[in-house]
């Protein structure tokens, strides 16, 4: 069995992100999804897990999640370095940076990577979609947020071809380090990007056959062509 730890599903389920785990779990009978609540110690601290997933949450809860995870920062680093698959979506990516600025408040984050984020809660919410490349694969994404990332990121997850990256000036998006994949994109990313889901399954050492593979690939190909045509 491959054990995937879904951290704080009671908070980090916004924008249908929990469907990432639902879909992945249904792709293989060899996958077990372990849901860890906020009152429990994460399983990755004391047990072996094959993958860790953390999704998007509200700004206030994001700060709480940072407090919850802070004592286990080194353990998380250890997992990243030994190649455990770690997948972060939406504002969960900000948690592994150095800090999050919110007006005159600085929220210290886990500091695993060398970037910072800043919230602009009074500005208009940024709603964008993007298309980019991850190696040979075309990846799509969707962002809806008040915050931006800045920093010298040497190992982005996605090179943007259409749309914006981690901030409105950037053409790179996310972080890819060992088997950590962190993207600002939120929602059911694994359904939007079946080519990426195949990669995850392969990394877990499983068959990369997807549930409703024909239909999901058709939906992907169509939307990809459409967005590449229409997105500047």
């Amino acid at each position, binding site marked *: 069995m491959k054990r995937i730890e879904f951290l704080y599903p009671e908070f980090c*389920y916004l924008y*249908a992100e929990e469907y990432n785990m639902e879909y992945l779990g249904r792709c293989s009978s060899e996958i077990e999804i372990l849901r860890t609540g906020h009152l429990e110690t994460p399983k990755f601290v004391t047990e072996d897990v094959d993958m860790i997933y953390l999704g998007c949450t509200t700004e206030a809860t994001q700060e709480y999640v940072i407090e919850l995870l802070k004592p286990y920062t080194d353990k998380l680093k250890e997992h990243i370095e030994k190649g455990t698959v770690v997948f972060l979506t939406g504002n969960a990516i900000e948690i592994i940076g150095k800090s999050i600025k919110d007006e005159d408040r600085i929220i210290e984050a886990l500091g695993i990577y060398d970037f910072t984020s800043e919230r602009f809660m009074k500005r208009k919410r940024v709603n964008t*979609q993007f298309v980019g490349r991850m190696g040979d694969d075309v990846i799509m994404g969707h962002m*809806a947020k008040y915050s931006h990332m800045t920093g010298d990121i040497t190992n982005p997850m996605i090179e943007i071809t259409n749309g914006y990256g981690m901030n409105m000036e950037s053409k790179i998006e996310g972080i890819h380090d060992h088997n950590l994949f962190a993207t600002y994109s939120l929602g059911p990313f694994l359904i939007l990007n079946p080519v990426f889901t195949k990669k995850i399954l392969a990394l877990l050492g499983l068959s990369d056959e997807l549930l409703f593979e024909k*239909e999901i690939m058709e939906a992907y190909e169509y939307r990809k062509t459409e967005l590449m045509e229409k997105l500047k």
Partner: protein
Amino acid sequence: MKLRYYIALLLAKMSVIALKITKHNGTNFPGAVAVKICPQFLQYADKPKRIIGVTGTNGKTTSTNLICDVLEQAGLKVLSNRAGSNLNSGISTSLINGMNIFGKQKYETAVFEMDERSALKLYPYLKPDYLIVTNLARDSIGRNAHPEYIFNFLNNALKIVEDKTTLILNSDDPVSSNLGKGNKRIFMGMADCNANPFVNSSPDVSYCPDCGGKIRYNYRFYRSIGNFYCEDCSYSTPEAKYFAEDVDLKGGKFTVKEGDSRTEFPLLSNTVFNALNELALIGLLRELGFENEKIFDLLSNVKITDTRRESAVEYNGVQYCVYAAKGQLASSSSTIFEFMAKEESVKDLVLCMDEETSGTHPDETLTWMYEADYEFLNRDNIHKIIVCGHMCKNTKLRLLLAGIPEDKIVTVFNEHDAKYHVSREGIEKVYVLNEVDSVRRGFKVRDEIVEYFKGLDRNE
């Protein structure tokens, strides 16, 4: 500064006349002009003595219409923005319409539907006497982020009018019932009415704002609305001043308890959603000083106008209906899917719920689709689902993941091709579910289906 205001008013008034001559009524143009010239227009404008605001994620328009109808029935002259927008420009337009050329307000009472996101631009200047909050649920992702965000937003705006605005709140909404702790608050509550709502996979609220504990329910009305309590602390449905009991949705009546008195009222609609809207109205009327007997009479003479109600035509024994759905909005879509499942007739569904304007519309993502409960459509009485539009491949995948058999699903990129796939036998109804912003589209698709079948019959 005041000079700017008078120039704004004059030009806006002139634009009203111009619009009337050119028969362009009901636009927000005069208000938009006024706000453009004088950004503080709302602050300076002469306002009715009594202002009632209505806000919330769902039910604002229905409630606003209902309140206006009842107050007019009671003989009041009511100013409202029911024909225009619920933003600054729409409300300014209403105020302009209510003023004479010298800027004197002719109305004593106003009922304004207010957009949640405009709270900070509206509350400080309008200082509503009463604000009804219908509920706070998940809205479209691009608009209102998550309920917690919009809660904080409203709560901050309410602090500015703490000593002025009385809130009329739905005590069974775990989000909005927590609003405005510094304001005077009137809670409306309701007893269980066996609504038996389906369970939503993506609830609007799942944890307690005070302690993070799990929110549980003694009974539920729809989605996250119901008699709630936190598993770990005392956070729960607040005690209601006006509490509806013996709610008989089919029989069309309910009883409202207030202190020791109990009064029966007619229900204006058979849905629990509208029963809650009506209850808020009753609370408002009581707070305004109306006697229960008078309220009974008033309610006996009004109807709920639900703009999104189905509209049906019959042909060869099959009903062809159009039903507006808010696409890109999970809560609204789930409610409609639940209705389609519970409405017992065997039916084909034609889904036209994508954004027709642009494939890159920022809300056109998979997010709402996977928050919406397509699972509800996995029922025997849903005979076939014809999915139209540029997102049809993704919707098909969603339906398959919801467990709906593949042979029930048809996809067409062009909605005008839907007619070739609608069943002619074995069904009682066809529902075209269209995006609410393009009502004509739904009617067009429905009429095309009927015309196509008529044509086939003529040629037989």
